[in-house]
């Protein structure tokens, strides 16, 4: 039925099967859309957020998807600026995942603000000293870049490519993609960083506050670094999942191995920096505010020292070692474990930098405040996930996302 749209030389599942899955995921999507509309019409009272939790699940999801979407900028950086040419075989997918992540982040932000109709104030009345302004600008600009990077892939669709203007447009965009990628990398560096800065500058919140370099707290650099380390892991993870679902090899092992190795080194260096940061913070910053490290990890039902161990050792050091050491990396079970741990690790990091910051009492006469999200919050957080799945489904079906697919899966005619 839709065979005219499917790229040549690849096999896709029957239309009915595609539509069935689309329908199933679509139902979840509608649930999310319903919750989103509720939040817009009735306001944020639909959430379980409160004055102690001004930032909650959504901001965490935002930070997490952006970190995970970091695969796009870093792979692009490696491919176009460093010149790791093999990566062209995964860059399309990295861009697609990045596009999904960033559009999700923008959507979540649009739901998260109390007056969505005034969100443009952030641009119009920009306070340039706010990390969030930097985030907003870089995020929007980088989203433009991602769109620019994604558009040529769309234009490669069999039918679109037949239109001469689109063909030329796609071609020309490819030609100067390095410029866009460079701009994207620049923007990404700043917004990943400023997302870290969002928490790091809160000098009223000792759990979040970090000293730093010029106007940038250390979290600024740590966030960029960790996104660069863990973003590609997420790209690889999604690729692996796609391969499992489609029951096909889509990317050659050398590409995966190269990206894995680079991620490993990034993660390794990141975690060393993170340990130094934590160390300095625990021994110098925190005591100067009158706290000890244990104050942050006791007297509450959730946040124990385990979360620090989990984030740094289990989800940081361990995957870094696996990914750096060749034989370990090439063990597919260990490789999978490593990339999953890395992804979890960065999510935990973003979680504590948002939610533990809010939970922790600063005034001596206040207590820990824990929070659980309302179904509306969960639904709107699931929304981007299903939206992403749908976009991947459609893109994979109709666009030549994986250049090596044809070669790896020859179709018998």
């Amino acid at each position: 039925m839709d065979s005219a749209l499917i790229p040549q030389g690849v096999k896709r599942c029957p239309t009915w099967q595609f539509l069935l899955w689309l329908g199933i995921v679509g139902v979840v999507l509608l649930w999310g859309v319903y919750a989103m509309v509720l939040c817009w019409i009735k306001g944020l009272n639909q959430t379980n957020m409160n004055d102690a939790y001004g930032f909650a699940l959504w901001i965490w999801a935002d930070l997490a998807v952006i970190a995970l979407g970091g695969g796009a900028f870093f792979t692009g950086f490696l491919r176009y600026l460093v010149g790791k040419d093999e990566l062209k075989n995964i860059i399309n997918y990295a861009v697609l995942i990045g596009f999904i992540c960033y559009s999700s982040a923008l959507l979540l932000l649009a739901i998260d603000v109390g007056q969505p109709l005034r969100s443009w104030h952030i641009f119009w009345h920009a306070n340039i000293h706010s990390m969030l302004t930097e985030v907003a600008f870089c995020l929007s600009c980088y989203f433009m870049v991602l769109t620019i990077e994604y558009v040529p892939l769309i234009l490669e669709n069999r039918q679109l490519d037949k239109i001469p203007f689109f063909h030329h447009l796609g071609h020309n965009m490819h030609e100067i993609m390095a410029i866009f990628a460079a701009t994207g990398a620049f923007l990404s560096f700043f917004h990943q960083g400023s997302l870290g800065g969002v928490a790091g500058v809160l000098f009223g919140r000792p759990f979040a506050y970090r000293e730093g370099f010029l106007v940038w707290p250390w979290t600024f650099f740590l966030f960029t670094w960790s996104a660069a380390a863990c973003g590609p892991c997420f790209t690889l993870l999604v690729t692996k999942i796609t391969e499992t679902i489609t029951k096909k090899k889509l990317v050659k092992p050398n590409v995966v191995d190269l990206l894995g190795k680079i991620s490993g080194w990034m993660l390794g260096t990141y975690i060393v920096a993170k340990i130094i940061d934590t160390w300095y913070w625990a021994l110098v910053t925190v005591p100067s505010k009158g706290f000890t490290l244990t104050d942050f990890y006791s007297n509450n039902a959730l946040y124990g020292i385990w979360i620090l161990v989990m984030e740094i050792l289990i989800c940081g050091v361990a995957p870094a070692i696996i990914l750096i050491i060749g034989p370990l990396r090439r063990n597919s079970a260990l490789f999978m474990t490593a990339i999953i741990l890395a992804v979890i690790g960065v999510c935990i990091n973003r979680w504590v930098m948002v939610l533990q910051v809010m939970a922790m009492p600063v005034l001596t006469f206040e207590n820990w405040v824990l929070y659980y999200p309302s179904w509306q919050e969960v639904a709107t957080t699931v929304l981007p996930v299903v939206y992403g799945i749908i976009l991947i489904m459609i893109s994979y079906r109709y666009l030549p996302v994986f250049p090596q697919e044809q070669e790896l899966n020859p179709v018998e005619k």
Partner: protein
Amino acid sequence: MSLGIGVAAGTTLSPLPWKVTDDLSIWTQRWPWTPVPEDGETSHVNSVCTLCPGGCGISVRKINDRAVKIEGMTDSQINDGGICILGLSGLQLLYGPTRIRSPLKRMGKRGSGKWEPISWEQAISTVVQKLDELRSQERPHAVACISGQKNGTVAELLKRFLTTYGSPNFMHVPSIQDSYELTLSMMNGVQAMAGIDVENAGYVLSFSSGTLEGWGSPVRMFKANSKLRDNKGKMVQIESRLSNTAAKADKWIPINPGTEADLALGLAYVIVQEALYSRKFVENYSAGFNQFKAFVINGYSPNKVANNTGVDSSIIIALARDFAKAANPLAICGRGQGDTPGPLAEFVAVHALNALVGNINQKGGIWSLPEPNYIRWPAAEPDETAKQGLREKRIDGAGNGAYSHTRSLLNRFPEALNSQKGDAIKVLLVSAANPLYTLPDTKSIKKAIDKIPFVISFSSYMDETARYSDLLLPNHTYLERFEDVVQPAGFHQPYIGLSKPVVKPLYLTRHTGDVVIAMARALKGNISRAFPWKSYDECLKQTLGAKLNSLMAKGYWIDEKYTPPTWAKAFKKTSKKFEFTLTPFKQPTRVLPKGDASTFPLLLIPYDSVRLANDRIGDPPFMIKTVEDTVLKGKDVFVEVNPKTAEELKLAEGKTAVLTTPTGKANVKIHLFDGIRPGIIAMPKGLGHNAYDKFLAEKGINVNDLISPVEDATSGLDAAWGIRAMLSKL
């Protein structure tokens, strides 16, 4: 497709997006459902707040015809610019949804909330018809009146109405002022009001009085407390619970509840024994000292008292010495906000302490103030029917037999009614009172009211009693009417305040004074003749006479030069001296709470908070907003329990438990509190309304559902300070 792109590009480049975003911004600022307050000319009206007996001067800010803010009046002698939380919330009462907007006649069952609006003419003729009927049956004494006010023109008009009509049953809502009055009558030999010169005291010894909980004139007490602090004075709070007052005191002395009289006598023991008392006063101006001395020496040694009160004997001795040696020491009593009269023994014992240190009618002491006498109407002349009715005994038994000293005993009213067959009271008038909520043992009050066929409420708000009445004759609120405000509770200088209309009446309400006059006129004959005024305002004007001008200008009249009579002239007992009476001590000194200790091992004490109005006025939304979440959470009220007691009962913070007393049962939540004696649980007063609006109703439990009055053997007044209780897991 290209068309779509073209349209998108065209729109983006046109001014349309800018226009849309701009409009969005404006629209989100002016949502039609967010009110935009109208601006206009600002003015201020000075008046007096009558939401409690404090009598604070207020200054109301107005924009055109709207009142927008109540502030304290700066040159007021009572509150000097300060104002309490209830006073600040007054506009929420004025403009609130609980106002009764016209006379209403009950339609459905009592309390069902079904009403029919009627005209004032209809309403008054309905009442008059009932009253005429009773008089024709020679039963004028079957009319009773419960008034929240004891003095002032409105109370006097009601009294006068009852007298000329022929009923002795005028009852006022009791408070510690009644106990103080009785004490002054028994010991000073005068019919007077107690004035407390707290501003000049140097050492305040408070026996469970919530001076920072709304006792007396609340703002005045707050100010006095700060002044005491500035002057490096001392404040000692004797109380079984770490109340706000105790928390702010220099010293908190936890005591077994109900043993305050014992402690006072124990202190007297030390003062007498160590001869720390004022020789000048005791030797020259008092009688019965030797008897008193023997009494305390025999029964109230520090060791004995320590046993009863739970206060260490060394503390008792030290406290007595501190108190007696301090400059201008002052002892006060009357629990919490002073809404319950309390055991007379306590008042007499504490007054004796004051006498021992010689601060009667002295600077920083307890003064006796003559009752206000500006209301000088010609005596009413009851006709024959009325005279006959007046000869009947009062339904509450006051002024008779055992209770001959007491003028009114509202606490005995329900019991008296419930123990009689038939309907002793046919018509009940309720003015400025909400007995169905404020009196202990609400069940028995309800039962008593059920026996009264016709209940009329003058309330401005749909409170519990109004909701359960048959006819509502709503008064203007205090911000819409003239009224004289007599003598703020505990104030030590003769004082009259004037409430003025700040805004025009919003609804079809009518001044209770006008309604009483209209009723009297419609009843004709002697009754009508006793009310020669055309309107209440005219009556007030005539009554205030020369004081009117200063009242209109300043809002209050004060006799600043007033000094109480000297010791030589002050005492009107036959001995012409102050008398150390032992009368209340002949009975057991301690008033025991209801219930037996084996079934009910704990003691429940109600506590007052200045953030919870617990009198006839319920908490407006602003106030309920300030109530802490360890007092009220959702609809659940917390009781304070010592962690030790809670541990024994295996109850944890925030858990729900069943609280049972001999009077009632309720589900409550547990709040662990180290500021309360083990074995005692405390519950806030002022919650558990079932009338008013959604901001107040059905939140928490009315502690009056759980406690019962206990009659004081000497005065007949309610002396209860708590009740035995049991707390069990749900």
